[in-house]
């Protein structure tokens, strides 16, 4: 029985599926291509996301193979004196303690006007280099330092590290960098670390462990005390990693060590936090989770539009092949077998389109990864990703989605095909019997979906571990509105056709087009619905970006009021560890031309396990020169008075949303001497980061954090002093500093902001391309089904051009219905994106701005594309013979 079923399926496949695919290769390929683009958009974003997060590495893993655990300071850095204390604490436990200091560096650029973020950032790891040989000697670990494979080897009996100790400004580089920049042992590498211009000598190549990922080009390794000096962090460590010596009881040893570490920690004022390298990687993943999920959802837009078309394609095929289906039914093929054959065909489309999509997606990912990594760099942490590797698991997910979605889209056409009666052999399949679109003819359903969407907008976001928020209900609302508006747009299309009819115009093509739209077919309705989806989401995103743009411009204009903005020239990304040393910033602040200065210090802290930023600031300067827009203004001026603001803080709106805190809330701030409580005196709008910022007076920050390194310095000059002249003077005196005027920084901020939206723009564009391609595809399908009518019209004397014009009008009018409804839904989506999705994800309030010019351009683009596509398809259809099979 099973064998006979299989043979019937094979017969059905060859007779009613494969034959049709062969007869119309162009349209078949177009359908597959549309699906492939949808899958490609999804797959490329997933790969790019993965690469951007993988770009954040626990770099010491490359050296240790993987530490068993690590400790960090509850706040700021650890003192190196903790090392001896740890060794005493752990007795003779066979564990290597690996002190680590990390910072960033860039290659100097002597250009007068620099593009911020244009230079790649190196991650510089400071390690106790001689001690690394102890790791390499363990059987579980990789090839060793100072081994013959490492270029730094000399003939000395100590394996060459004494040359590194004698020349502390030595650096080990990756093989990738050596190859790229043609560096070798002894080459010189100029760098900026903090504000210091240094020239490091290449001591050798970082040994590669074949069991670890390749050493990235941007990783540099130095001897720890030398880096402590260069990074202005003498005696400080970022973390201590623990590598238990290889042996049969390694995990038990680590558990014992962990217990000792926990027991030695004071509960009220913990000295260290015990974690693992996996925690560090996971925190990078959770930090960006909301951002990556949003991108993934956006990438599904093209796939969604593509599915409308798969549905259309299969539905159209049912109509075209109805005669053959009826014959098969009369020959005894059961309806179940027919349905199975259609579902197999749908799955086949999903599989082939999906496979094509994987190839396109992998190519797209190579472009997308740079854009995603740029955003991650600007907002979260340094990501070194510059290419996306093919990932088998992601490929399987994309393929499964493609196949399942195709089966879903093909479900109804399959049922229709199965229900074809043998008697219909005598009936010429025609539009009047087109079965699709029953749901699309129900305005009540459209209204219900829209109302459901409205209800969903009241739901809060889903809170992710690590502090991220995912506005899942808002996304569902958007879907409800898009589907609802798609249904209602079909009704609008009928009205448009009837309106044209009432106008009684003389143009034959226009009247012909109008006659087809008066009672729009299911296929017309589906086409309109897919256009509503593409235009609605694209225009909605344009409204969000436009609003963002307007808000950012206002914020930037307000924020950059002072004369000069100074940071390390190495600070090329938001996550840069480059700082300005106290000696340098004090010298600048003391310059006679400086009227007032704001020394800004920044530090990552965790509140209840969720990461945020503690910012040291002169709060009065912040008020006067950054002119914050208040979400909850302070009740009094105490917070701006350094003599009165010791227990007060200002919080950004993102902080308020992330931690559910408002004016008057008390925040327990972790400091080197335990928790200190501050009260939030006001909440201001801020678009610098989504993790939120808590601003306290700089003097208090320095006391609590134990360091005075400045992230940036903002200067207001005495009257009569020219900012440009002062900028030139400071640049000459401190060539390792980036000194910017307010005007220049405003421009750069906007440029970086637009850069972070590059992926969004690309995804929008893909959505529109799919919609327009789908329009051409649907028009071809419609005209094919009407080829007898076209022949009749030609017999009545209509010319090819007139038939082409009629098709162009039909396409343009259908597109018009889609565009009008799409724009209408985009206004609602714009509101949803600004006030729900963006607010719930990032905690930022935006000023609504509708970029009418962009929306008009989008409408014109879709209308013109539809008309042009319709015209060409019409010309092609006018040549079709009445009896051609496909």
């Amino acid at each position: 029985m099973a064998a006979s079923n299989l043979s019937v399926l094979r017969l059905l496949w060859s007779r009613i599926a494969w034959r049709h695919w062969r007869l119309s290769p162009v349209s078949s390929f177009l359908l597959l291509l549309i699906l492939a683009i949808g899958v490609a958009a999804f797959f490329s974003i997933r790969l790019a996301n993965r690469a951007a997060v993988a770009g954040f590495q626990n770099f010491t893993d490359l050296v240790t193979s993987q530490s068993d655990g690590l400790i960090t300071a509850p706040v700021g850095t650890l003192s190196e004196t903790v090392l001896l204390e740890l060794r005493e604490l752990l007795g003779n436990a066979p564990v290597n303690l690996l002190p680590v200091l990390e910072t960033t560096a860039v290659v100097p650029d002597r250009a007068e006007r620099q593009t911020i973020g244009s230079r790649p950032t190196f991650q510089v790891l400071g390690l106790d280099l001689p001690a690394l040989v102890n790791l390499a000697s363990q059987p579980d670990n990789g090839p060793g330092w100072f081994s013959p494979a490492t270029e730094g080897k000399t003939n000395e009996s100590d394996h060459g590290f004494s040359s590194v100790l004698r020349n502390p400004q030595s650096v080990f580089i990756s093989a990738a960098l050596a190859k790229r920049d043609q560096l070798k042992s002894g080459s010189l590498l100029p760098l900026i670390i903090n504000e210091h211009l240094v020239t490091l000598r290449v001591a050798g190549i970082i040994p590669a462990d074949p069991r670890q990922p390749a050493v990235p080009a941007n990783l540099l390794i130095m001897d720890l005390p030398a880096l402590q000096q260069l990074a202005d962090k003498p005696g400080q460590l970022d973390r201590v990693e623990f590598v238990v010596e290889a042996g049969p009881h390694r995990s038990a040893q680590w558990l014992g060590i962990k217990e000792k570490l926990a027991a030695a920690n004071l509960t009220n004022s913990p000295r260290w936090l015990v974690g693992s390298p996996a925690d560090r990687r996971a925190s990078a993943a959770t930090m960006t989770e909301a951002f990556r999920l949003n991108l993934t959802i956006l990438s599904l837009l093209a796939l969604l539009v593509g599915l409308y078309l798969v549905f259309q394609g299969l539905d159209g095929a049912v109509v075209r092949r109805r005669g053959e289906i009826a014959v098969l039914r009369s020959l005894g093929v059961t309806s179940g077998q027919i349905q199975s054959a259609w579902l197999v065909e749908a799955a086949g489309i999903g599989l082939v389109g999906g496979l094509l999509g994987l190839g396109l997606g992998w190519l797209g990912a190579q472009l997308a990864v740079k854009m995603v990594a740029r955003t991650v760099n600007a907002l979260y942490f340094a990501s070194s990703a510059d290419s996306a590797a093919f990932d088998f698991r992601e490929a399987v997910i994309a393929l499964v989605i493609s196949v399942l979605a195709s089966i879903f889209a093909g479900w109804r056409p399959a049922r229709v095909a199965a229900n074809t009666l043998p008697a219909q052999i005598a009936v010429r399949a025609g539009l009047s019997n087109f079965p699709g679109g029953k749901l699309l003819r129900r305005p009540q359903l459209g209204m219900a979906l829209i109302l459901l969407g409205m209800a969903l907008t009241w739901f809060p976001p889903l809170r992710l571990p690590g502090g991220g928020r995912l506005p899942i209900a808002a996304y569902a609302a958007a879907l409800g509105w898009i589907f609802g508006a798609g249904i209602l747009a079909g009704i609008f299309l009928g009205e448009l056709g009837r309106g044209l009819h009432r106008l009684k115009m003389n143009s034959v093509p226009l009247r012909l087009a109008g006659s087809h739209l008066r009672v729009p077919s299911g296929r017309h309705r589906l086409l309109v619905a897919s256009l509503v989806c593409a235009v609605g989401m694209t225009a909605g995103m344009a409204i969000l970006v436009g609003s963002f743009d307007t808000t950012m411009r206002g914020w930037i204009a307000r924020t950059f009021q002072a004369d000069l903005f100074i940071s390390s020239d190495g600070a090329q990304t938001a996550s840069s560890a480059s700082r300005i040393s106290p000696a340098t910033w004090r010298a600048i602040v003391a310059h006679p031309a400086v009227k007032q200065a704001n020394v800004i210090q920044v530090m990552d802290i965790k509140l209840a396990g969720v990461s945020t930023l503690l910012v040291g600031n002169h709060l009065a300067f912040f008020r006067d020169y950054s002119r914050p827009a208040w979400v909850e203004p302070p009740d009094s001026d105490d917070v701006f008075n350094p003599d009165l603001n010791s227990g007060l803080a200002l919080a950004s709106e993102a902080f308020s949303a992330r931690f559910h805190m408002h004016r008057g809330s008390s925040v327990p701030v972790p400091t080197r001497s335990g928790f200190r409580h501050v009260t939030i005196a006001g909440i201001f709008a801020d678009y610098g980061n989504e993790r939120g910022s808590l601003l306290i007076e700089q003097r208090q920050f320095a006391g609590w954090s134990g360091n005075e390194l400045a992230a940036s310095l903002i200067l207001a000059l005495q009257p009569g002093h020219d900012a440009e002249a002062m900028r030139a003077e400071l640049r000459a005196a401190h060539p390792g500093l980036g000194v910017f005027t307010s005007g220049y920084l405003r421009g750069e901020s906007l440029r970086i902001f637009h850069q972070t939206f590059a992926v969004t723009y690309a995804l929008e564009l893909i959505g529109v391309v799919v919609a327009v391609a789908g329009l051409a595809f649907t028009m071809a399908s419609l005209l094919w089904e009407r080829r007898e009518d076209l022949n009749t019209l030609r017999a009545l004397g209509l010319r090819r051009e007139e038939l082409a014009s009629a098709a162009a009008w039909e396409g343009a009018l259908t597109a018009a219905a889609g565009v009008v409804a799409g724009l209408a839904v985009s206004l609602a989506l714009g509101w949803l994106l600004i006030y729900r999705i963006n607010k719930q994800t990032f905690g930022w309030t935006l000023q609504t701005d509708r970029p009418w010019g962009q929306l008009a351009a989008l409408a014109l683009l879709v209308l013109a594309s539809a008309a042009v596509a319709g015209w060409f398809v019409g010309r092609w259809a006018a040549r079709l013979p009445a009896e051609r099979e496909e």
Partner: protein
Amino acid sequence: MTAMPQAPTPAKKHLLATRLVAAALLLGWMSGAAEIPRLTADGYAVPQPGRYFVFPRDHGSHPEFAIEWWYITGHLTAADQSQFGFQATFFRRALVPPGLTNASSSASFGSSQIYLAHMALVNPGTGKFIFQEKLNRDGWDAYASTNTMDVRNGNWSLRLVSPQAGRPEFYQLQGTVAAEVAFALKLIPRKPLVIFGTNGVSRKAADPRASSHYLTFPRLSAAGTLTLNETNQAVAGEAWMDHEFSSSQLGAGQVGWDWLSLQLFDGRELMAYRLRRQDGSTDPFSTVAWIDLAGKVVQIGPDQFNWSVCAHWQSLQSGADYPSLVRLQAINPATSRPESFMVQPLVADQELTGKLGGVGYWEGACRVLDENKTVIGRAYLELTGYGESLRGKF
């Protein structure tokens, strides 16, 4: 003086030559002709005769010298009568002469000294020998106090615990080997400290700079715990502790040395080192030291002992061919009669391949047999310079 019992003619000629050289050297020494420089060409201290040792300070580190080590070897017996041999060695090597520091030096991450350490355990019952090396710069994870014996390298340490009321001073050794073995031993000297050499200086070659200050506890009781595969067991036994500091251990033409410590069941000890020349011959500065029951030391020259090789063991790892079964015949100064000791390794493979230190050697626990093949004591034998010459490294 009784002639040595072996004596084919060529060997006798060699013996004569050796005696002449030794006599000439002694003459030069006595006349003061061989002026002893205070510093090496690199600026490190040269051992000076007549040094006045002060303890516990001189148990500590002497960074003015280029090379220094604290060396403990011993034999342990567990409650179940299992036997073990162990070695714990802490080396210090200066990277820059005293008074100079490398630019990146800091208290926690120094760059003027490098510390290498070796730990090894041999279990004759299973035939298993394991060892581990550690290498660290001076600083938080490796140091040697200049005030007392307080040496550490990673999680390994050796400390002098000062005497307190009712408790004699002792040495605390803590170590692990390849995460399989951990030991914590209390070492109590059973004989007074011995200073080898003449006038406090142990000469190694004609060049006066090739010499050391060589201090030894020839017999210490050892007791504590040995953790093997997560099982703690009480152990007890005897150990030997050397502390030697110098700026050069080998002279021109020398390629390595064989060293031997014997602890005889009758309460006597012997220390012997045979400095080997390029051609395999014994250097005239080689010596055997007899330590009697009271701890009195008498050293004899190579004319009064014979070190003969009975068998070799070749390492599959390094390829070095070690003459690890030896017979030592030496004139006992107390009786002026020769005594013979067959030194037989408990396990053949006791090679420390020296991946980190760059010097491979064989250092093994042995039993000592007399001519009747009766076991009369325990020993540790060290064979260096068989993989490659040590010249320029020590």
